[in-house]
């Protein structure tokens, strides 16, 4: 099998990469482009550590082929940050509230909840309820925090 060249737009920057057809978005972002905030956790789509936004929607990086992502906008958690490593307000809430212990699930949590809050607001709801946040995060597993501080951080952000 030969590699083919594609252009991946990640966090607003175009990257020319050579990929096998079977390379996933996770493979390319992590191994080729050195993006440490997109991580392998299970390869099954159940844990959420490889979450990226594809045209703004959270998807499993491990279940999306790189060739499928060509021509679309890919966003990782670091893509939410401002120039000079300025944190997104939700990241600041995570930090302040102790919502990150080992940190491995954090990018997936942040991306999923940013999407949730944005969609909620665009549908005319002031903010998601705590139960709605729980529901949205069902596919983002955490083994360290017991979820409470993550929910607290997202609620604080949603209230802003």
């Amino acid at each position, binding site marked *: 099998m030969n590699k083919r060249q594609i252009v991946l737009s990640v966090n607003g920057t175009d990257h020319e990469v050579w990929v*096998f057809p*079977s390379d996933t978005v996770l493979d390319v972002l*992590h*191994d080729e482009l*050195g993006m*440490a*905030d997109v*991580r*392998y*956790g*299970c*390869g*099954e789509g*159940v*844990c959420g*550590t490889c979450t990226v936004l594809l045209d703004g929607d959270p998807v499993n990086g491990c279940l999306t082929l790189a060739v499928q992502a060509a021509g679309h906008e890919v966003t*990782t*958690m*670091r893509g939410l*940050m401002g120039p000079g*490593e300025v*944190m997104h307000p939700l*990241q*600041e809430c*995570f*930090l*302040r*509230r*102790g*919502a*990150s*212990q*080992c*940190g*491995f*699930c*954090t*990018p997936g949590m942040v991306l999923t909840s940013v999407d949730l809050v944005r969609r909620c607001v665009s549908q005319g709801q002031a903010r998601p309820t705590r139960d709605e*946040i*729980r*529901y949205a*995060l*069902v*596919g*983002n*597993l*955490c*083994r*360290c*925090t*017991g*979820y*409470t*501080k*993550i*929910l*607290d951080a997202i*609620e*604080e952000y949603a209230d802003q």
Partner: protein
Amino acid sequence: MTTPDLQRFTKPYRIVGTSPAHHDFVDKVKGSLHYAADWQLPGMLHGRVVRSPVPSARITGIDVTAARALPGVAAVLTAADVPSNQIVELASGGLAELQVSMPVLAADRVRYMGEPVAVVAATTPQIAYEAAELVAVDYEELPGVFDPISARADGAPRVHEVGNTLVNWQIHCGDVAGALAAADVVIEGEYRSQHVEHAYLEPEAGVGWIENGVLTLRVSTQVIEHAAMIAHILGLPQSKVRVIAAYMGGGFGGKEDMTVEAFLALLVWHTRRPVRMIWDRQESLVASTKRHPFIMRYRTGADRDGTITAQQVEIIGDAGAYPNLSPRVLFAAAACACGPYRVPNASITSTAVFTNNVPASAFRGFGAMQIVLGYESQMDQLAERLGLSRTELRERNFLAKGDLLPTGERLDTCVEVAETMHRAIALLGEPPQPSGPGKLVGRGIGCNRHPYGRTIWFRDRASAWLSLQGDGTLLIRSGVTDLGAGQAASLCQIAAEVLGAPLDDISIYIGDSALNPPAGGTFATRQLYMSGNAVLHAAQELRDRMAPVAADLLGVPADDLEFVAGRVHAHQGEVSITLAELAAACDKRAISTAHLSTWRAEAGSFDPRTGQGDTFPDYTYGTHAADVEVDVETGQVTVLRYGACHDVGRAINPMRVQGQIQGGAMQGLGYALTEDMVIEDGYVQAVLFANYLIPNSQDFPDVLVDIVESGEGKGPLGARGIGEPPIGNVAATIASAIQDAIGVRPDRLPITPERVLALLDERESQP
């Protein structure tokens, strides 16, 4: 929000007792932290382990020719390629256990499904997978044994030639037989727990390379001291092996034994190229070490008024195919088998038995966790039999400072378990009503005594090296490894408290066997106790050395000084100098502003024949409480409210303490209700992460937390360890609540809906 107000925790300190978010937590939230798999070197190869698909077999042949011939393959190694193919863990310091070694790569026999047989390295992960599949191993299956009771029986297949019983601990005090015979009531119970998996979100991973002739591994590990073992395996001098511990994406004991280290070392040393290895999640589920399933048999004798007079306990743990840390786990279980209660006559035996199941080893709680279900179930059963309330019965029997444990040790710190019990129940508020017909509600509690610090005979020590730089910033160097619970950050808080350096001015370097003074591994809830004390003392000793210089400069007595916010000034004084100025002054007077300090834990000894002697330095006491609802038609259990309270001595960082309690309790809820690594005839049944059910964000309510700060812990500033204790209470608490709801006690974990229905049927059939 549900997080209780943190401000009301007592704060006699400025930095300690607050909850700043700093150091590695900033990088984690920014996504810029590099975990073990986030490391690339030019020419890096990709490694993969070839594992046995069968649980018990003789290897009659291995053919690696096809694998080696595949283009892109740099190495295919088998047992013959391992210079010293033996890992020997003297897990209990040589006390009373069989000596059994574990091969790095199986030579002529495999003893569990998933046992490593070969390793490959190739230029791409793709080729590594193909090469692994091309390694042809011939297995001649042998009879195996898959549960410890069968394994102990005469004529059972031998997992190891020396026998299937790895270790048998005995603790005896008083006259148990006599006390049981004389007791007004004797409660008998047998309780069983299951294999569970750590399921850290970061799979096992690491990268190895050679630098200046030194084999260097950067891995997700709790223990950098394995460097010595790695050197031995490769036949290298210890000076030629360096292990760097990356910040872990979770450990929980699953990264306490070596995981990828030996395989990386072999491949790197053989190929002379960098190699990366990341385990598949499914590989980790099948083959990484697990928690020991326990069979716990109790006979508890008591007077009519509820005073416990005797405990007879038999603990049997399934060690799996190799020893790992089994002897220590079963020892911890034995040492805690009587719980937080006074027991004048005790007879405890605790046995680790080999089977052809996956090896069991360290997992948060380490034996002292599983046993809580045993002693707490007995307490609830006793209360029911005697017609006493559960809290009343416990209060009658709680240990107190000065009491003797069954090992003959005297408790020398306060025991606030009663306080934690009242506070945990208070967290629940009013008992709920059933949500509809066919639903029953119940409330339960679970108290525990959990050790922190290593077993005393290990003569534990930890070192820390502090350097005040010329510009007033501070460096901390410590061999500590960080699991994600703030092991590193807490050391910064302690140093900041003592030396007054702002947190932003402190850098900490951890987990490097070449560059850091050794601190011992991160396990046994020992790091705050050990490294916290090491840093505390190093900081205090450094401050004491610099104080006369500051005193001289400021013209005040040395004991009148305050170090705060980057400056030194007299208490109530207006004149101050910066830490930079102090450093410069010290330098001029040839007084070093760097200090290395080693903190040693109390030592002791234990006699395995008498079961008397020193076990652990101290304990953390706590209670959980829960309200549950049971659907009597489906058996489904819904946890309505959950509260946890522990005496942590001193909360260095209250928010992180809460986080440990909430996270530990959540793992406990999975253990109690949904997690089961089912192994049948040695074959792991659930190989997908989708089928291994760790709690998600919707399964359970928030864990409400209260903290007692008794200040009498042996950690820095009176702290007690909190990493492990909160996972222990949960299963007992849930079982207690279900018993309250349906009138029958669950005695097997996990408490599945199916098992609850069976208990309900049992209740129906009782007259």
